[in-house]
């Protein structure tokens, strides 16, 4: 099972601006000026120098909104959410398969807020005859919301004009589904208008997609249910949008969680890897690097005698093999 992140930012897309890029170039050149003599004389040396830089200096977490691809055996493709990251995913699929090899895409929508749907009109395979998109979700308004965003005056191409075959399937919590060779379960989460997390299992591996979810610290039943949903997952994509102090104070009831809650839940569930996800658009790359380091420290402090939990931070383009 392989997980690829195409969009990891929450709420709305962001990108580096010219001044941020300039500052980054200056900081890299400053480092280069102090590199040992000869380090930068060869292509291999220069590549090694770049790879030695902190992630926030040599890369970027990216700014596309949520879209995660899950590939299983038989090359089955599942997609979690259709944020703006779906554009890149669609382009990659078109580049690989072209119009001559129709594909089926099983898409799981966490909820109907626009940052999780805005990529569909730009998902190339939608317009190719023969492709089949099966859009799964737990909201009764799923189909209406998708049709609404592809209608005048919000978008120039009406949903009725797409040439791929689109189906909508409503899922229920509390039961398991067999979809494209995966065992799939949904869990209702605390978020404005509700959101749903999904647990995918195949051949003993498990990926949990749990974004846009606020974990109230005084809701014991919800806390326990979440631990059960995360139980022994190989990877959890977790809404780590806010610091804990923000989450329980000024941004309480905004429907999002924090890195510390993610570490606590994942440790309690015996999960193997936690991916910080749904990054706050206010956080730049350096802030996200610090958040990751903080999260790893907190995991080490909180682990006690439990097996280690690997904490990573999702970025656009990251691929994780389970």
């Amino acid at each position: 099972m392989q997980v690829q992140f195409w969009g990891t930012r929450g709420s709305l897309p962001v990108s580096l601006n010219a001044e941020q890029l300039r500052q980054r170039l200056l900081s890299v050149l400053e480092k280069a000026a102090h590199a040992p003599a000869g380090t930068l004389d060869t292509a291999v040396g220069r590549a090694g120098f770049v790879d030695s830089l902190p992630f926030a200096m040599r890369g970027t977490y990216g700014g596309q909104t949520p879209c995660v691809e899950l590939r299983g055996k038989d090359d089955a493709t599942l997609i979690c959410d259709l944020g703006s990251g779906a554009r890149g995913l669609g382009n990659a699929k078109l580049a690989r398969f072209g119009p001559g090899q129709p594909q089926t895409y099983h898409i799981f929508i966490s909820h109907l807020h626009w940052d999780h749907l805005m990529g569909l009109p730009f998902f190339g395979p939608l317009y190719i005859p023969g492709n089949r998109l099966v859009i799964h979700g737990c909201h009764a308004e799923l189909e209406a919301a998708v049709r609404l965003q592809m209608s005048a005056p919000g978008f120039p191409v009406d949903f009725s004009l797409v040439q791929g075959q689109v189906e909508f399937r409503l899922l229920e919590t509390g039961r398991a589904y067999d979809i494209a060779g995966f065992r799939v379960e949904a869990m209702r989460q605390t978020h404005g208008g509700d959101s749903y997390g999904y647990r995918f299992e195949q051949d003993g591996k498990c990926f949990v997609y749990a974004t846009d979810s606020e974990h109230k610290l005084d809701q014991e039943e919800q806390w326990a249910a979440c631990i059960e949903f995360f139980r022994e997952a190989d990877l959890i994509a977790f809404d780590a949008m806010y610091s804990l102090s923000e989450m329980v104070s000024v941004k309480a009831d905004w429907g999002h969680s924090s890195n510390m809650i993610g570490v606590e839940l994942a440790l309690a569930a015996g999960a193997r890897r936690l991916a910080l996800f749904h990054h706050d658009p206010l956080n730049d790359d350096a802030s996200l690097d610090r958040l990751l380091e903080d999260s790893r420290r907190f995991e080490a402090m909180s682990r006690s005698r439990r097996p280690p939990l690997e904490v990573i931070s999702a970025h656009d383009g990251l691929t994780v093999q389970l």
Partner: protein
Amino acid sequence: MELEAVVHPKANLVMVRGRIDHGSSMTFSELLHPHLEKCKKGNPPLILNFSGVDYISSAGLRALMIATRFARNQGGRLGIAEFQPLVREVFGISRFDLVIPCFDTLEAALGELA
């Protein structure tokens, strides 16, 4: 989880001992409440000595957030002092050190709050 009031001329000083996690945060809140009720306008500040606290989780931090609000609403002053290094680090990671007055020493807390 244990709280012990210590006589002090300038503050309501409370020694806190143990772990404040999901299992004990409720007890911590209950034990803290009588001290919080005295943390009001005109009274000495409530200072929690955390030298005996060896771990605090998100639930414990939330309990402290609620306590801080309670004290503020009464016009009282509340601070935490004498952290173990790991616990102090958790306050930084959670950014709670930006919303709850934190002090390295009791003297520093008294200097600011008393």
